[in-house]
Structures are given as C-alpha cells and as structure tokens.
C-alpha cells in the first residue's frame, strides 16, 4: 500500500515512515474514535490504519458505542468547545463518563500507544492500563465555552500528550502539546486523478457549463462559510468577466440552521442561470473531485474555519485558490505564493478577477500550491508525524534524534 504513494508523496516521508516502522515494529498502536464512517477522522483512519499495519506496527482501530443521549451530549460538548453557547449539566457529564466506562469494559485498551480522537471518548483515559496515551483534538478549541472546556480538561490533562491541528488551538494543559495539521489522501476518490471522460460525465450530469470559467466553493450551507458573500463577490466579477458560479454542498441534517441558510442563498441567487447551487448527497467524493478539476478558481471564503481542507483539495488539483484568512486556511495559502488570502467580498472579487485575467499567474500559483500540499498536507506526512510523536515520547527529553 505504501508503494502506491511512491512518486506522489515526498521521498523523505516514505523513507522516514519505513525507519520509524523499523523502530516501532511489533509494538501496538490503538486508535479510538466515535464513528467508523463519515467525517474527516474516519476518512483518514480508513487509509492510515492499513498503512501502519504494513509498516509492521500492530495497529487496531476501535469505535466507541453509545446511545442517542450520549451522542446528543457529545454533539453539545463539541459545539461548546467550538464556541457555541451550550450548557452541560452534571447529569450529562455523568452519562458521558458512564458510557465511556461501559466501552472501557468492552474494548481492549491495552497498547503501547493509544491515540484517542476528539472529546467523545476522552474519559477512556481513566481506564488506561499501560502505554503512552495521546489525546488528538481535531476541532477548533481557540475560543471555547470555559466551563465545558475546563470540565473536559479534567480528562485531557491525564494524557501523556495532546495533539492539535493548529498552534492557535493549543492551551496550557500542563502536558506535552504537539501540533500536527490534518491531511488529504491523494489516492482517495476525492483526490485521485480522473480521466477526461469521468470529469465530463460529472459536468454533464450536474449541468455545469464548461464553455466559461467556473468559480467553485465546496462547503456546507453554513453562515461561517459565507455562501452569500461568495455570490456577492461573483456578482462583482460578473460585471467584468463572464463566468459561472458553483456552490456545492451536502444538506446538513444535523444543522438546524442549514436549511435557512440554503434558502437565503437560493433567494439571493434567484434569476441568475449562471449560479448553480448543488445539493450533493453524502459521499459524493468523485463528483466533488470532478467539480474541483473543471474549475478555474477554487474559493473557501470562510469567516470561521476549523482547518478548511477543501483548500488543500483544490491546491492538489493545481487550482488557484482564494480563502478567508481564518482557522487553518493561512497555513495552506501563503498569500501571493500559493493563492490569495482575503478579508472581504471586494477582496475576493478582486482576486477572482486577477486570476481570470492572468491565466499564467493562476497556473503558476496552482502549480506551487500543488507542491506545497505535496510537502505539507498529504496523509503520509500525517502518519509520519504521529509515529514521530510516539517515538519522541519513547525517547523523552531529546530534541534531536538520529534514526
């Protein structure tokens, strides 16, 4: 499997994976999260776990089970950690703990390294047996509801280390904190190379004209993704350049605001046949891949963002990208080098026009963007980083290690 990444991922990452695999061979590595399918964490684990097994590391992936009440509570905890006002009562925390306790009885938690993903299974640390326990936080914890965060930290501070996606999400927890950005899988359905037929089939089926430049934003219909702002920017561009706008997203069933935002967007777009609002079913990975490939410019004009991996997805396809300067987007877009960061509707419109009128510049930035993603945001780099953290914890105190 790792061979498939040869010629795609940086050579050094593959060499280091092999080296770390030799060092950690026959040791056990356990991942625990709360869902087997759906969401970025499961998507990456599906590919990462077989890769680790191939390296000779005894890797398991366990999923905690819970009732509806448990997942309702963890959803609230998740929202509160991301800054939404939520109240978690003592009874709710107790239920959260009890469900984890039951899972601890059911699951084999014995391993040399245990990586617990996100807040849902975080209390499992209370039932640790041996090994290094690492809490992997994938969400934005820069501005949480304090009481909820403080309660959660009672568990998280019991780990040996924590891993965050962005430096801004770290907090003084009193344990080692590492920063490991998320990644995309270049061989997945969403990112693999597509044939011209596959791309045209998607464009024809979704009725997207390809005779003019396509501006694309892929995101949920969420105010933080600013879909209305994207349409406003497109309307400014349209005065100067003929183009098509595609807003593609999945219906957000767990987001009560989603429908209201979608209606607002439709209303705002009404009467313009060149604005295409696509509601794609979940797992439309190949269609999203094709849409990104037919686009002339990829936008992620978010006002608030966790990491925003759609930026890396667009860059991986060699597209010029424009993103809001929030969350993890500035880590992916080096302004003026791999794309443009914007702070307003007008800024987004101006940069779209620049790309449409300077195809050479757009191509150059797209090429740089692809190389930037190759070196920084592929799954092999993330796997390498997890193993490096584990290995460094086994050699605590050393800041330079020779393999």
């Amino acid at each position, binding site marked *: 499997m790792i061979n498939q990444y040869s010629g795609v991922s*940086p*050579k*050094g*990452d593959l*060499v*280091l994976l092999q*080296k770390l695999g030799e060092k950690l061979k026959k040791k056990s590595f356990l991942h625990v999260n709360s869902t087997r399918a759906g969401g970025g964490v499961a998507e990456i684990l599906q590919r990462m776990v077989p890769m680790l097994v191939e390296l000779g590391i005894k890797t398991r992936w366990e999923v905690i089970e819970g009732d509806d009440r448990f997942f309702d509570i963890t959803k609230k905890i998740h929202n509160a950690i991301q800054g939404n006002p939520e109240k978690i009562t003592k009874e709710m925390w107790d239920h959260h703990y009890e469900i984890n306790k039951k899972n601890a009885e059911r699951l084999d938690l014995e391993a040399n390294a245990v990586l617990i993903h996100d807040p849902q299974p975080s209390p499992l640390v209370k039932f640790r047996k041996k090994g290094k326990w690492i809490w992997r936080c994938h969400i934005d914890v*820069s501005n949480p509801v304090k009481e909820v965060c403080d309660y959660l930290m009672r568990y998280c501070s019991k780990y040996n280390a924590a891993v*965050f996606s962005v*430096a*801004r999400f*770290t*907090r*003084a*927890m009193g344990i*080692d*904190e*590492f*920063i*490991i950005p998320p990644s995309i899988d270049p061989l997945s359905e969403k990112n693999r190379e597509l044939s011209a037929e596959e791309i045209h089939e998607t464009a024809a089926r979704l009725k997207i004209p390809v005779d003019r430049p396509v501006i694309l934003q892929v995101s949920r219909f969420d105010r933080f993704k600013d879909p209305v702002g994207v349409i406003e920017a497109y309307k400014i561009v349209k005065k100067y350049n003929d183009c098509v706008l595609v807003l593609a997203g999945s219906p957000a069933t767990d987001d009560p605001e989603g429908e209201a935002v979608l209606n607002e967007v439709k209303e705002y777009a009404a009467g313009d046949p060149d604005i295409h609002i696509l509601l794609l079913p979940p797992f439309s990975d190949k269609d999203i891949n094709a849409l990104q490939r037919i686009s002339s410019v990829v936008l992620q004009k978010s006002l608030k963002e966790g990491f925003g991996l759609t930026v890396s997805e667009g860059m991986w396809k060699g597209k010029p990208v424009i993103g809001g300067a*929030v969350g993890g987007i500035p880590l992916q877009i*080096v302004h003026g*080098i*791999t794309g443009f960061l914007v702070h307003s509707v007008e800024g987004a419109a101006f940069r779209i026009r620049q790309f449409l009128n300077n195809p050479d510049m757009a191509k150059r930035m797209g090429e*740089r963007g692809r190389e*930037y993603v190759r*070196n920084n945001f592929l799954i092999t780099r993330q796997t*390498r*980083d997890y193993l*490096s*953290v584990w*290995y*460094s914890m086994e050699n605590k105190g*050393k*800041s*330079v*290690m*020779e*393999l």
Partner: protein
Amino acid sequence: MEAIKPFEFKQCVSILKSTGRKAESLRGMREIIAGVSDESIFHHTYQYFLKGHILEYTNDFAHWSGESLEERALAERLSGIDPYDFSTIGGLRNELLRVIDDYLGKFPEPREAMPGDEFYFNQTITLTFPAGIWVKNLAEFLIAVKYVDAGSIYYHFYEARVRLGGGVDDFSAWIQDVLLNEGLAAGIRSIDPFMHTVDGIREHIVELVEDEVKKSMEIIRQ
C-alpha cells in the same frame, strides 16, 4: 589509490511542539523571548527557512512584527539579525532583546495584534535520517542534489551551519575536503542563505556544479 569518501545525503524532519506561551503585544513577546527555552528561540530563527517559501523576513519575530503588529521598521531591524553571527542561543536572544528594547525606547506604545493573530511560541523535535543516497563524484552529486527532498538541502545547507559553525555547509565542506575543489566550494559558500528559499538554494548549487561538470567534460574532450 585512496578511496574517495562518499557524501551521504541525510535529511531532517521537525515536529512542532507548543511551549504553551503566546504573546499579544510587542512587550509580551519581549518578556517571553527573555525566558522561553533555547529550543524555541532556535525554532523561530534558525528553522525559519524550513517553511520553504518566499518571505519578506528572515525570522518569525520579524515576520510577526511586520505582518501582525505592522511595525515595519522593527521588522526590518529584526530581519537584519544574522543568527549565524552567534555561537550560542543566549547571544542571539540578547541581540533580539536589544533590538526590541531599543525600538520600545523610541516607540513605547506599539499596537497589539488582533485576536487570533497572537504570536505562539513553539519549539521542535527534529528527526534526522539517511536519505539513502551516497555519491562519489560531482556528476553523481549533481543528480542527487536535483533529486533529494527540500528537507535534505535544508539539513546540509542550513542546519550544517549550526553544527559545523563558521558559515560552513556540508556540501562545500565535502567538495573542498574530499574533492579538493576549492573554487566550487567557495562558490557554494558565497550563496547568501537569507536571500533564497530552500529550492532557490538548490537551483544555485545545481547551476554552480553543472558549470563545473561541463568544464571538466570539456577538459576530457581536449
């Protein structure tokens, strides 16, 4: 005939680790620079070029002062600090503090960074490992330099300066000591480490070595 000592390409990878400290203003940054670990100062200065893209500055402190605090004059002065002038991190730390204190003396109330744009003090854990490539002559060296990852160029060109001291990099050291080609070694040493990205450094080295290889081919033909 004595066997030529081959050049072994190595490379390094760094894992970011938080110090748990952040600065919201220039005064805050100054206080933390005074007390933060040597590893953190090292990361924000010597390892700046690991980022591998064209930037206006030469270290993270200058970058933040210029971009987030919009204190351009300070950013220029901090960018003028050459970390390789110092034999210890302590010396470099003192110079950073001297420049900031001098600036604060003239402009006592610089603005604060916007929320979310604070300076996060990090440090790294570095893993070095062989890239699996050995070369014995300039022609092989040329192919390898074109082929290796940027992390390898960084290790031999930037990291080596800290390891070897005296502005010396691994490439020029091998070319001088083993291949006995002083002219080429001096050419590589004259590449300004602050004016290029890692890939720019690679291009310059390739250019210099390519010229040298061509020259030696012409001599053979004559």
